[in-house]
C-alpha cells in the first residue's frame, strides 16, 4: 500500500498541475530565463531523441562492421566518429547504445522514487517506531559509499543491465527516502492536516490527497537531480563488465572495450564518454534551474 501510494498521488499531483496552466507557465518563465539551462535542455532532448530514433538516424546498424573499415579516425568519410577494432561505426553504436544507457540512468531513479518516496512518507507521516525502523535500516545502506554498494550487489546478482538497474535502485532509495521523510514531517505539522483528521479522514486519504500532493514537487526535483548521478553509476558498473555482454552496444561498456585501443586511436576511445558527460552535465544544469524555478513559486 505504502509503496503504491506515491504513484497514485503522483498522477493526482500531475493532474492538478494540468488544471493550473498559470503555474506551469510561471515555472517555465523562470526556467527559460537561464540561457545555460535552456541550452542544456536542448542538448538533452537532442541526445534522447537521436537515441530513441536510432534505427532511422544512425548511418549503420550497431553490429555492422567490415574488416576493411577497421580503426578509422574521427572525421573519416562515412564514419564521422570513427570505427572500432571490428570496423563498426562508433556513432551508430553510440546512438543504439544510448537507449540502454539512458534507461539505466532513468529507471533506477524512477523505481527508487516510488519505493524511497513511499518509505520516506510512511516514516515521516507516521513517526514513532515506524520512523525509527525505516530510517535506521536506510542509514545502514547510507554508511556505504554508493558506487561500492552498487558494485557489490551487481556482482552478486551477476552481469546484466537488469541487475545494474536493481543495484542502482537500491543505492538511490535512501537519499530519496530522506528527502521524502523530512518533507512529510513538515507537512504533518500543517493545520490542514489537523483539519482533515478532525473531519474524520483516514490516514490513507490524508496521505494521498494532502501529504503527497504537497511534497511531490520536492521529491520530483531531487529525483531529477539524481538521474545524472545514476547514469554515471550505471555506466561505471557497465565499464567494470557488470552490464551488457558483447556485441550489445552500451556507453560504459563501449569505453571498456575501446580502452585497449587508446595507444592506437586515442580520440575514438574517448568519444562514447563525451555522451555520458554531456548527458549528465545537461541533466544537472536542467535540474538545478528547475529547482530554482519551483523555489520561486513557493
Amino acid at each position, binding site marked *: 500500500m505504502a509503496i503504491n501510494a506515491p504513484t497514485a498521488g503522483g498522477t493526482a499531483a500531475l493532474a492538478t498541475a494540468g488544471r493550473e496552466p498559470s503555474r506551469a507557465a510561471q515555472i517555465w518563465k523562470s526556467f527559460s530565463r537561464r540561457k545555460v539551462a535552456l541550452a542544456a535542455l536542448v542538448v538533452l532532448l537532442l541526445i534522447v531523441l537521436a537515441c530513441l530514433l536510432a534505427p532511422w538516424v544512425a548511418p549503420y546498424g550497431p553490429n555492422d562492421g567490415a574488416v576493411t573499415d577497421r580503426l578509422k579516425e574521427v572525421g573519416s568519410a562515412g564514419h564521422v566518429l570513427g570505427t572500432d577494432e571490428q570496423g563498426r561505426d562508433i556513432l551508430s553504436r553510440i546512438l543504439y547504445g544510448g537507449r540502454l544507457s539512458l534507461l539505466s540512468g532513468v529507471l533506477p531513479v524512477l523505481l527508487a522514487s516510488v519505493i524511497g518516496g513511499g518509505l520516506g512518507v510512511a516514516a515521516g507521516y507516521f513517526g514513532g517506531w515506524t520512523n525509527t525502523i525505516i530510517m535506521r535500516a536506510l542509514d545502514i545502506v547510507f*554508511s556505504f559509499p554508493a558506487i561500492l554498494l552498487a558494485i*557489490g550487489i551487481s556482482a552478486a546478482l551477476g552481469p546484466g543491465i537488469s541487475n545494474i538497474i536493481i543495484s542502482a535502485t537500491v543505492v538511490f532509495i535512501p537519499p530519496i527516502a530522506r528527502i521524502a521523510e523530512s518533507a512529510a514531517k513538515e507537512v504533518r505539522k500543517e493545520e490542514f492536516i489537523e483539519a482533515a483528521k478532525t473531519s474524520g479522514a483516514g490516514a490513507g486519504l490524508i496521505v494521498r490527497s494532502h501529504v503527497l500532493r504537497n511534497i511531490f514537487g520536492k521529491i520530483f526535483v531531487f529525483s531529477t537531480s539524481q538521474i545524472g548521478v545514476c547514469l554515471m553509476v550505471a555506466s561505471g558498473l557497465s565499464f567494470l563488465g557488470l552490464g551488457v555482454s558483447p556485441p550489445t552496444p552500451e556507453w560504459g561498456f563501449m569505453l571498456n572495450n575501446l580502452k585497449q585501443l587508446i595507444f592506437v586511436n586515442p580520440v575514438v576511445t574517448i568519444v562514447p564518454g563525451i555522451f555520458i558527460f554531456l548527458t549528465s552535465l545537461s541533466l544537472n544544469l536542467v535540474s538545478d534551474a528547475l529547482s530554482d524555478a519551483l523555489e520561486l513559486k513557493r
Partner: protein
Amino acid sequence: MASFVLKRLALMIPTLLGVSIIVFLMLKIVPGDPVNSIVPPDASEAERAAVRAQLGLDKPMIAQYGIWLGRVVQGNLGDSVTRRLPVTEMLLPALKNTVILTAAAAVTAFIIALVVGVYSAYYPNSRIAALFNGLSLASIGLPNFWAALILIGIFSVTLGWLPSSGMNTAGSSGTGDLIKHLVLPTAATALSSVGIMTRMVRSTVSGILKQDFIFALQAKGVRRWTILRHVLRNGMPTILNVTGLQFGALLASSVLVETVFSWPGIGQVIYQAIGQRDFPVVQAGVLVIAIAFVLLNLIVDAVHAAMDPRVRHA
C-alpha cells in the same frame, strides 16, 4: 579528547555491524544453490544434505550470519574460488596501494579546493571565479573512468610524459618512479570530488566573510593575510569534515580509476574477480573498502574535534 575518541569508537560498532549485514546479504542474493558448485551433478540428496550441513547452510539465516561474522572478525574472509588462496592474502597488499592512491587524491583535491574555493569566495564577481564555478560544475558530471582515459590519451599517448599503467617501471622501485606513476591516477581520482569540495569551501568561506568579527578586524586595520588566517581557522573544521565525507567517494572512485591504470589496488583485484566470477573476492574487497571508509571518517572526526572545542564538548 580521549573520551571523545572512545565515544566515537563505540558509535562505530553499530555502523560496522550494519556494513557487515549488507555484505553478508550480498552473498545470499547470489543466484543458484551454492551446493551445486561443490557436489557433482549426479550427487544424491543425502550427499547434498551432508555438504549443506558442512557449509552451515542448513542453519537459520541469523546463525549463518553469526558464524560468518565470527570468521570475519578473526580475519578469515574466505578463499578465492579461482586462485584457491585466502582472500586476505590478495587484499592486504592491494589495500596499501589503494590507500596510497586515495590519500594522494584526497590531499590534491583538498589543496585545489582550498585555493580555488577561498579565491572564489574573496572575489565572487571576478571572471576567474566564474570560470572556476563552471569548471567545478562540469567536474560533477564527469565520470572519473572517462577522465582517466582522457588523461592517458593526452599525457601518455600524445605527449609521452607520464606512464599509463602500473605502479613501477619493471626493474626500478624508486620513489621518483612511483610518483611518476601516481600522477595520472591521482588526478583522475581527485577530479570526482574536487568540484563538490570547491563549492563547499567557497560557501563556507563566504559565510565567514560576512560575519561581524571580520568587519571588526578590517575596521582595526588588520592586514589582509592576517585576516585570511582568521578566516581559515574558523572555516577549517567544516572544510575538513567535508573532505572526510568525500573520502568515501574517493575510495569508491579509485576502484574504477585503478582498473584503467592497472594500479595494483583493491579496485583492480575486484575488477579481475568480476571477470572471473570470483564472488568471495568481490565481497571481501567491498567489505575492506567499506571498513576503511568508516575508519577514515573516525580519524577525520578526531582531527575535527582536536581543532574545534565546540565539537569536542558537544
